[in-house]
């Protein structure tokens, strides 16, 4: 956990392993210097010493307290430094912050998950959690989209999930290669292929803003009530404490009130999809 006496001080974490997931995405396995627990969907602020700090939702299991993993796309200043880091180096962690997925509300239900690109990272953590309580769930369906087969992340984990009772994985890519045998098209096309009992189901969406927008639209068309659509919002969460103001989305501090919201909570706030 965070330093209780100073909310801005990170705890140190040793970088144990760097896994290349795709040409632009890496997973960083870290060992915090003290036990670190989080609920799935909550996020951390990860510090690259002297360079900067950025928010990431862990991609590892919330049941694991000795190690924590984040999966990061190289997309900005901090992530570029992060991608160049080597095993054995030290990172800083603050958190966990925010409100994650209310997993207990998924009991006795089907969980339909739509993910895109690096949005699989928070979803993998959720899937680990759901797998651990699968006796309490009806079914879990993951619909995952990426640009190309090369950019599909967590390939071994997807295979593992496909062999897990009650779990189903559908994948699509925008641009296939000759080996691709699964769906081609934007991620929402997968939702047409899913058989789901909407009345006994919840929908979860995490990915780039454009996917979140059309994914939510599709969920609504399918008949999901607004309060059963769970969205993991991406804003400029900087302090994580509901103070710095950078992630304000209307009346909400995404870092504190989110990042997981139901659609009905945020539908009237400005610019939720950008």
């Amino acid at each position, binding site marked *: 956990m965070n330093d209780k006496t100073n909310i*801005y001080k990170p705890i140190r974490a040793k970088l144990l392993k760097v896994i290349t997931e795709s040409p632009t995405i890496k997973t960083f396995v870290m060992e915090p210097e003290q036990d670190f627990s989080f609920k799935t969907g909550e996020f951390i602020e990860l510090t690259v010493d002297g360079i900067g700090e950025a928010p990431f939702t862990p991609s590892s299991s919330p049941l694991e307290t000795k190690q924590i993993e984040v999966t990061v796309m190289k997309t900005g200043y901090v992530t570029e430094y992060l991608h160049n880091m080597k095993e054995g180096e030290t990172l800083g962690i603050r958190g966990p912050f925010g409100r994650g997925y209310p997993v207990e509300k998924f009991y006795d239900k089907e969980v339909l998950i739509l993910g895109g690109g690096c949005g699989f990272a928070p979803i993998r953590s959720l899937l680990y959690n759901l797998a651990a309580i699968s006796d309490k769930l009806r079914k879990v369906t993951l619909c995952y989209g990426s640009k190309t087969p090369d950019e599909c992340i967590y390939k071994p984990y997807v295979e593992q999930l496909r062999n897990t009772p009650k779990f189903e994985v559908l994948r699509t890519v925008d641009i296939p290669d000759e080996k691709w045998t699964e769906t081609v098209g934007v991620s929402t096309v997968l939702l047409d292929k899913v058989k789901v009992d909407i009345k006994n189901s919840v929908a979860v969406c995490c990915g780039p803003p454009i996917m979140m927008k059309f994914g939510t639209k599709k969920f609504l068309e399918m008949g999901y009530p607004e309060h059963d659509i769970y969205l993991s919002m991406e804003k400029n969460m900087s302090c994580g404490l509901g103070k710095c103001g950078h992630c304000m989305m209307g009346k909400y501090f995404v870092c504190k009130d989110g990042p997981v919201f139901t659609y009905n909570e945020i539908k009237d706030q400005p610019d939720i999809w950008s």
Partner: protein
Amino acid sequence: MKNYYSLHISEWNKAIEKVLSDYLIYAPIKNDFTLDYELINQTNISEILYNIPKPTTPIKTLFLPIKENVTNDKPNQKRIIIGTPNCDIQGLKILDEIYLDKDFWDSTYHAKRENTLLISTPCFDTQEYCHCSVYGINPFPTEVADISLSKVDTKINLEILSDKGEKFIAELKGFASISKSAETDLKDIELKQSKVEKQIHSNNSGLPDYKKTGDIVQQATEETWKRYSSKCVSCGACATICPTCTCFLLIDKPNFEKVRQLDACQYPAFERVAGGEDNLHQLPKRFKNRYFCKYVWKPEKFKSLACTGCGRCIEACIAKINKNELFREFAS
């Protein structure tokens, strides 16, 4: 009545000199350019101005400095801030809600609040853009501050507002001649306060009260925001000078140290994420954002006012944008 004490200005000045060894003291002093808080030393005690309207800088800057290392936990020296008007005192309430949130207690801010004795002063005069009373704030302190100080002729009258204030008066009694305030002085103070309150209302006739601001902001059209923001240059002065705007950047320094630097939603890229999305990329949206934050979103989230009617944003605007013109336009 029992909470009012009085001492002669010469005794008060001696008392300040005496406590200088234990406290850093800030108080308003007029210089060649402005009237602002200065660090008090033995040579400028007699220049302190009392019961004037607001100093140039809001008091938030003394609790949330423009730039501050928030990870090195340096002990704070005890401080006394004299001469803070009630608009700034009321501004501290929302800062307390944000920074002393029980889930995320900001120890750096808290240490400054704890180590500071606030000697607020009722305003015996107004400035052109003061409109606190219209927003339901008295131009004199009744809470949050520790002592309310009113100078009447050569007498300093001190009203105790908190336990901390009471302890300080007890400390003063150890070396200064203090008596109960005279009835006539108290009546005089009351009269002055009431006169200023009336003056503020009269200077701001037609200006809607705080409760109406939210609806007005929501009613304003995109054309309105474009029109009012057309002269804005995104300098951020309105936010920097505002007693309740406290957004900041966290800047990383080696050895996992972090520096908190005051930021503003008026600056480009305030909300930009690494992926490139930037809700407030367009200037009219940034301009509108500040109004929504102060008059719609913060009131939904916090108990304290997010605008205390100090008028500094109007004074500070180099483009001469007057927020109250917008509110007046939509009041009818």
